[in-house]
């Protein structure tokens, strides 16, 4: 099952690089949430039952439903349909994803020891680096939030990779992080959208008190 999740997660990252519609980003985030649910369900079985159920609910409710629902609301409020041309052509973005994937596979082979689940480390590392890349290449604040959530998903996977245990405090902190980020950034996006009638990041430099 591990391999299936690795393949699926990597494919979602490739589709992130390929797609240009904001609705597709939201769908892909929901799918990533489902994949994380599967990962937790099948590989995190050494922790006690309360933590297990909590993490399962977190992935299925927060990551798969609440966050995409809220992002969709923000998208509709700002009438955002299509991402403007990113700074880097999509063709090169896909090649960059492949390169990041290869590097992270090689890196995890190099870092390999018994204490780590390096299988998940491969996609986790890719996801973190790709999230940063995603933020850099897009001009839109909405897409920057999506990139942030990709990084967050990568960190979730990384915490699975470091040990088969996932401390509940760490988990709560990540959860709080996501909530605050998505809520605050969502409100922020709405305000910016209402003021400038556009979500391009270049308008942000005009913001002065």
């Amino acid at each position, binding site marked *: 099952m591990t*391999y*299936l999740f*690795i*393949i699926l997660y*990597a*494919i979602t990252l*490739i*589709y992130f690089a*390929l797609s240009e519609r904001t609705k597709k980003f939201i769908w892909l985030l929901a799918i990533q949430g489902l994949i994380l649910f599967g990962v937790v369900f099948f590989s995190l079985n050494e922790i006690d039952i309360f933590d297990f159920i909590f993490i399962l609910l977190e992935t299925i409710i927060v990551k798969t439903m609440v966050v995409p629902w809220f992002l969709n609301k923000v998208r509709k409020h700002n009438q955002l349909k299509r991402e403007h041309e990113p700074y880097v*052509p*999509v*063709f090169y973005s*896909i*090649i960059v*994803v*492949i390169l990041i*994937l*290869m590097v992270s*596979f*090689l890196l*995890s*082979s190099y870092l*390999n*020891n*018994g204490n*780590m*689940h*390096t*299988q998940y*480390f*491969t996609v986790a590392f890719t996801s973190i680096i790709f999230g940063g890349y995603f933020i850099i290449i897009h001009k839109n604040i909405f897409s920057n939030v999506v990139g942030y959530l990709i990084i967050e998903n990568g960190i979730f996977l990384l915490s699975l990779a470091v040990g088969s245990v996932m401390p509940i405090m760490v988990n709560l902190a990540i959860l709080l992080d996501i909530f605050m980020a998505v809520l605050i950034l969502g409100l922020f996006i709405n305000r910016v959208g209402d003021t400038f009638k556009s979500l391009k990041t270049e308008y942000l430099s005009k913001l002065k008190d």
Partner: protein
Amino acid sequence: MLSLVLILITAPFFVGIILKVKAKFAARKMPSILQPIYDVSRLFKKGAVYSTTTSIIFKIAPLVYFSSVVIAAFFIPIGSLKGVLSFNADFVYFAYLLAFGKFMMILAAMDTGSGFEGMGANREALYSMLIEPAFFILIVSLALFTENTSFYGLFKSLQISTNLSYILGLTAIYVLMYIAMIENSRSPVDDPNTHLELTMIHEVMVLDNSGFDLALIHVATWLKFSIYGALISNFIIQMEWPLYWQLGTYFLIQVAFAGVVGLLESFRARNKLGKNPQWIIMLSAIAIVLFLTTLIITKKIILY
């Protein structure tokens, strides 16, 4: 030998089924499933007209294209039925046979001296170039997984190995299906029904071919579809099944494949021409993911 016969039998009905499905979803009156066969047999009765600017290349190209596709069909096994020819690394030969046929068609298109056909040839060459890594990486990862390099051995040992082969198989079917769509100039990349030369890819290349030559090109396209359908069926048909059961599954998969192509064509908008290369390279990217995963599975990269 039987596998070749099976591929030849299914080929003529493939496009008919696609047209039928498309007509059904567009709520049009459905053409007969044999309609493409009638069209082609009418073309076969006609002679070909050659432009005075063309040379011998234009005359032999359809024949070379057709024969290269027929020979490529020799290598495809179906379930426990071996292909007519089979040797180590035959998939390379298979891929380059198809590429050779395509190369001749591109030369022929350039030979006519028409600007439109040159443009079509240009696009066809670009897309074939981009799709080649996807096919090779896909087959090489399967070869790595099964430690076999001929089509027959590859599919044979894919079935006796563990459940992991299902994961690889599913991804492989997804990629192979889209490779087939691109190779046959179908929906997301090309549209066979378009009437504007500027947006055509494959059709514009064969604008000058007529009569017998055009019929050969049509039949070669059917055969290509059938070949890819047979390749896909190999992921599903198990060798220990009795023969009649294997044959039934084979025909079912071919019909389903044609149906899926028709469905995709009915419901999917065509890509913008500028976005085609990135869409095609996405298939290569998925194949690379498959390859990297195979490296872990086969313990070439050891991960815990």
